[in-house]
């Protein structure tokens, strides 16, 4: 099987299957934004540090600027656009609700990545300490330095998700 400069990407994004032939060097974040027009996933640093491009790949948070679209082929992606409950256009996921409630954003650029990262932290730590949240957010940078309310939002979301 020869290597190809174009690859067929077959990927399910937010429950919807997509098929496209793209250059092999296409990064997942560019596939999502430019091909599928899902522009909620942001490009911040482009160097695997800031986490603005965080999406879930087979349910686990990854940095989509550091995954090839080709690597995602055959897998399931969830982006910020697919986080709210299906069929509820106005609804918010409990993590999104908590960011709104606790004002966990300033300029908003890092917010989609923060929300997707917090979703993962709470999946791994349903009852997190503040230290768990801060350590879990090591891969996400807020240039507004608005971490205080982001952490408060994560802890608030954890309480709601536990039904407390």
């Amino acid at each position, binding site marked *: 099987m020869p290597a190809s400069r174009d690859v067929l990407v077959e990927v399910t994004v937010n429950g919807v299957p997509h098929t496209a032939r793209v250059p092999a*060097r296409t*990064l997942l974040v560019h596939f999502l934004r430019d091909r599928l027009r899902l522009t909620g996933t942001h490009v911040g640093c*482009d160097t695997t540090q800031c986490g603005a491009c965080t999406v879930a790949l087979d349910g686990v948070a990854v940095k989509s600027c*550091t995954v*090839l679209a080709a690597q995602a082929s055959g897998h399931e992606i969830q982006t910020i656009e697919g986080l709210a409950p299906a069929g509820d256009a106005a609804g918010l996921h409990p993590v999104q609700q908590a960011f709104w409630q606790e004002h966990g954003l300033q300029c908003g650029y890092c917010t989609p990545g923060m929300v997707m*990262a917090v979703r993962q932290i709470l999946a*791994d730590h349903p009852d997190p300490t503040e230290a768990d949240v801060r350590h879990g957010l090591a891969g996400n940078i807020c240039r507004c330095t608005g971490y205080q309310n982001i952490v408060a939002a994560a802890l608030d979301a954890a309480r709601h998700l536990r039904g407390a």
Partner: protein
Amino acid sequence: MFPADFGYVRAGSLAQALDLLTEAAEADEDAKLLAGGQSLLPMMKLRLATPQTLIDIGGLAELTGVTVDASGTTVIGALSTYRALQRDPHIAAAYPAMTDALAVLADQQVRARGTIGGCVAHGDPAADLPAVLLALAASVTLTSRHGTRTVPLDDFLQGVFATDLAPDEVVTAITVPAAPPGQAYEKFEQPASHLPLAGVCAVVAVTDGVITSAGVAVTGVAGRAFRALDTERSLASARPTAAVIEAAASQVASGVRPLSDQHASGPFRLHLAQVLARRALTQAVERAATA
């Protein structure tokens, strides 16, 4: 930013990956294996690496997982992710220093994709795990169309991004011998990359109040992770008092020519290594006492 153009092929099995590698080597083609891609893809985006071909082995389930034999020797599939290893109960019980490192290695998103085999093959002088694996006397299993060989990690690592990996070989497993419970890893990180400016792993066996064996290794300080042989020698047969640990830690980078860059000067790295060696040894001795 995106990588320079390349050809991509996904290997369906290890055998197919070996065939593809051999074909590329014979054609004098610059092919790279793609595992988790968490080091390779950033280098490709910066055009520090411009392979002609990527052979994606990321999906090979045959190279994942942890197995243990009766002697406690543990074989870790090269494509096991940091995230999977962090959640592996055997790793947590047998190699607490590895769990220490996995908890502070990069960030949760990178740990979800990055692999132990990719880390070792990459040869990054500032990777966390090589210090742990050297202190645990781990070895690397390499497979090619010509067969399989197992090399001590200490021989495999050669220098900055340089290893003993041949162009037609795949890192298939990391083997870690059974180890005493007195283990710890301590690092001081660059806050954006989370790479250690210095990281030290200590593994000590303590019997009747005397250190019967010691493995100490350092990463981030020199062109490759290294065993701190002077420190190990000064600990042998000693009682692990604070003074003994302090004296041993002060030799952790003796004779080493340190890296020096915009993140940390050479003398600062040497200082960090000594402080971290003291902390890691103290913690390892405590764990040995409470195990």
